């Protein structure tokens, strides 16, 4: 078969039967768009989480009594420092502060600004902050979600916290946390540790938890045992546990979508299969006619295969492109709510564009293989029957 003549006829057929192909392409694009969007979002969230967790401390220690978290004695930090292999011990003070009027809450995080921070983004932000002016007044750094939420309620520059002893504590908003940290920092209020204690109601020798690093990953398992042995009510969590619980959460949501997608794809495949295998379809008559006009089984299969590949590729490229724009340029409206959950505060998280080759290949295979099988198996069955029978 001459390649030019073949492609000439293929493009002619695709163009002349565009209305027939268009419906298949539109449905395919929709399915691919949904699948790609879900996988793009989960890849991007996984990437952001990995990036965020990379700069998180390796271990977090807190006090748990009767299954309830209680304030952790600050002196435990000194005991941790005595363990060989432990570095960068940081006490943290944080807690949920409820904005009662709307049943929303902020995460108040107390930071010792004079200590080196284990969180690099926070450290970078502190480095850029004029500490002297920051300490002169009660000041805080707030996440984008907090800033927006308070501004809508006329707290543009400051907020009055109601402390546990019934007094008000006015804290000025100094700066907004960078949007890259929105995945975890959207509802945060970062302030000096003593101020945070006052708002949450901790005494001077109490903290919420204590973080520390263990530079040698081989010591992590043993370190958990060593630290747990310090106190009966000491609860220790490492970074991998946190990562796993986050991944489980997002994989669970992505998995639900994947099941929905597979049901959708299965239905579409069945429809396609039925369409191409219908006994009296025009498709069968066309194939029989081509055979009667001297086309061999190979010629027919080659033609139909190439036609299907073109449709699959066009749908694939368009589906991926639209999903990319939807997720990374438009921020995935609607779907983001599903993935980020019923957020405490509206989160303007930007999904970091991540194009993983394995994800793209998976999308192609999950979509293309059933599609091609649904079209080509009936085509093959018709091709191998006598042309007279197909033309009936």
């Amino acid at each position, binding site marked *: *078969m001459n390649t030019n*003549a073949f492609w000439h*006829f293929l493009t002619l057929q695709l163009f002349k039967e565009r209305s027939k192909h268009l419906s298949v392409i539109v449905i395919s694009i929709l399915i691919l768009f949904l699948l790609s969007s879900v996988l793009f979002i989960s890849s991007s969230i996984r990437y952001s989480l990995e990036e965020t967790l990379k700069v998180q401390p390796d271990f977090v220690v807190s006090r748990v009594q009767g299954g309830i978290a209680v304030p952790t004695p600050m002196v435990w930090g000194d005991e941790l420092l005595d363990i060989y292999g432990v570095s960068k011990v940081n006490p943290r003070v944080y807690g949920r502060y409820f904005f009662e009027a709307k049943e929303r809450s902020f995460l108040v995080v107390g930071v010792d600004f004079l200590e080196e921070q284990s969180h690099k983004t926070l450290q970078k932000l502190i480095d850029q902050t004029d500490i002297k002016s920051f300490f002169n007044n009660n000041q805080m750094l707030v996440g984008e979600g907090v800033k927006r939420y308070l501004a809508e309620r006329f707290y543009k520059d400051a907020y009055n916290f109601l402390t546990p002893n019934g007094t008000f504590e006015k804290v000025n908003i100094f700066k907004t946390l960078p949007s890259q940290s929105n995945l975890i920092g959207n509802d945060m209020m970062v302030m000096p540790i003593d101020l945070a204690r006052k708002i949450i109601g901790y005494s001077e020798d109490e903290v919420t938890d204590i973080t520390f690093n263990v530079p040698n990953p081989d010591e992590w398992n043993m370190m958990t045992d060593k630290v747990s042995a310090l106190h009966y009510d000491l609860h220790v969590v490492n970074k991998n546990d946190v990562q796993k619980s986050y991944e489980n959460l997002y994989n669970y949501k992505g998995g639900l979508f994947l099941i929905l997608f597979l049901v959708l794809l299965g239905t579409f495949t069945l429809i396609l299969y039925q369409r191409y295998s219908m006994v009296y379809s025009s498709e069968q008559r*066309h194939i029989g*006619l081509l055979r*009667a*006009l001297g086309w061999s089984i190979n*010629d027919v299969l080659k033609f139909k295969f190439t036609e299907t590949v073109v449709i699959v590729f066009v749908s694939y490229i368009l589906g991926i492109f639209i999903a990319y724009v939807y997720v990374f340029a438009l921020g995935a409206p609607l779907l983001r709510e599903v993935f980020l959950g019923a957020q405490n505060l509206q989160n303007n998280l930007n999904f970091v564009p991540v194009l993983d080759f394995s994800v793209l290949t998976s999308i192609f295979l999950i979509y293309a293989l059933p599609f091609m099988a649904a079209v080509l198996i009936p085509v093959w069955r018709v091709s191998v029957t006598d*042309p007279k029978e197909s033309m009936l």
Partner: protein
Amino acid sequence: MSTNTMIQIENLYRTFHHGGNEVPVLKDINLNIAQGECVVLKGVSGSGKTTLLSLIAGLDKPSAGKVLIEGEPISKLPDLFASELRAKKIGMIFQHFNLFEHLSVSENVTVPLIPSGLKMKEIHEKVDEALKVANIIHKQEVLASRLSGGEKQRTAIARALVADPNIILCDEPTANLDRDNSLLFIDILGELHHMGKTIVIATHDPLFDNLSFESTVVPMVDGKIV
């Protein structure tokens, strides 16, 4: 087989199986058709003439016996060779025209040449030539769905001729045509006969009883040549 035999049919049987019953459609057909001969298979509906034509074209397989085209047993050849034989040596004209309705006249005529290995320029030349012979070149850009019955038949003729086959098989070619278009079709057949084509026509139309050119009428009754 004599040297100028184009189609040779030997002890040909075709039986269909329907609801557990065997329905014999062709019974012991023997027929030799010489090169350049025009044969009219004449018979009422159900006499087996269309089935015989399909077997000659290799569109169906016989239950027993064989069909030889220039000595090649078309029904026993593997698909690749049978298709090639059909593409090069046989042109089919169907009762219902069997055109691709979404394609234009010239595009329909192009279809048999796509697997031929010819370049597009050569294909266009052959298509133009066939359209001229079938007297339909003036409608070459028109969609098949917009043609009259006579125009569709002439398009089908052009398609059958485009690969310059030696054999033209016509299945009830005038069944869907009025008298004027039927006579026009017979005139074109006459031209093809003068060009030396071997023609086999399956029909019950009385217009084919006394053709203006030399032809042999083969009557068929109940699957047999009588």
